[in-house]
């Protein structure tokens, strides 16, 4: 098994874990974490699967860089919304 394939499989597991988490968990912060896990899983699949032959592929690597930045942006916005609710006393974590 090449490292690429191994990490792709790990990514699949992370994605499934995150997906179940987003649906099942109730705390907002926890769901934000779960969504990030989903994203990380997808990133690992993107790069790992493309590099399963052992050849470095810059295209998915660039895509993942884009994806990471998008994930940070979304996380920050979600946290801002959750905190606004918490400040108004409507939400707990």
């Amino acid at each position, binding site marked *: 098994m090449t490292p690429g394939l191994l990490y792709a499989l*790990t990514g699949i597991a992370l994605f499934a*874990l995150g997906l179940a988490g987003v649906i099942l968990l109730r705390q907002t912060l*926890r769901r934000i974490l*779960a969504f990030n896990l989903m994203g990380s899983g997808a990133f690992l699949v993107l790069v790992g699967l493309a590099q399963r032959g052992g050849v470095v592929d810059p295209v998915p*690597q660039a895509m993942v860089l884009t994806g990471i930045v998008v994930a*940070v942006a979304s996380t920050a916005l979600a946290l801002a919304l959750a905190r606004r609710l*918490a400040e108004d006393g409507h939400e707990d974590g």
Partner: protein
Amino acid sequence: MSLAFDALLALALLWSAWRSLATPDLTRAVVMFIVFGLLMALAWARLDAPDIALAEAAIGAGLTGALLLDALGAFGERRGGDRP
């Protein structure tokens, strides 16, 4: 040797991800998530993707971690305010 490294790292990734969702305490969850991010940086290094490893190290260790911990403080203040 490298397969053992990869397998161990993969297990560690899954373990920290699982703990960050399943642990009852939010602080622990966030710390485990930061650990997860840093392990991801190692995984990217193993995948010959140093660009992503760099970004993950900078964003995972620096920014997301700080954001989450800061948010934790904000939520905690509220929770703390509710109980003596």
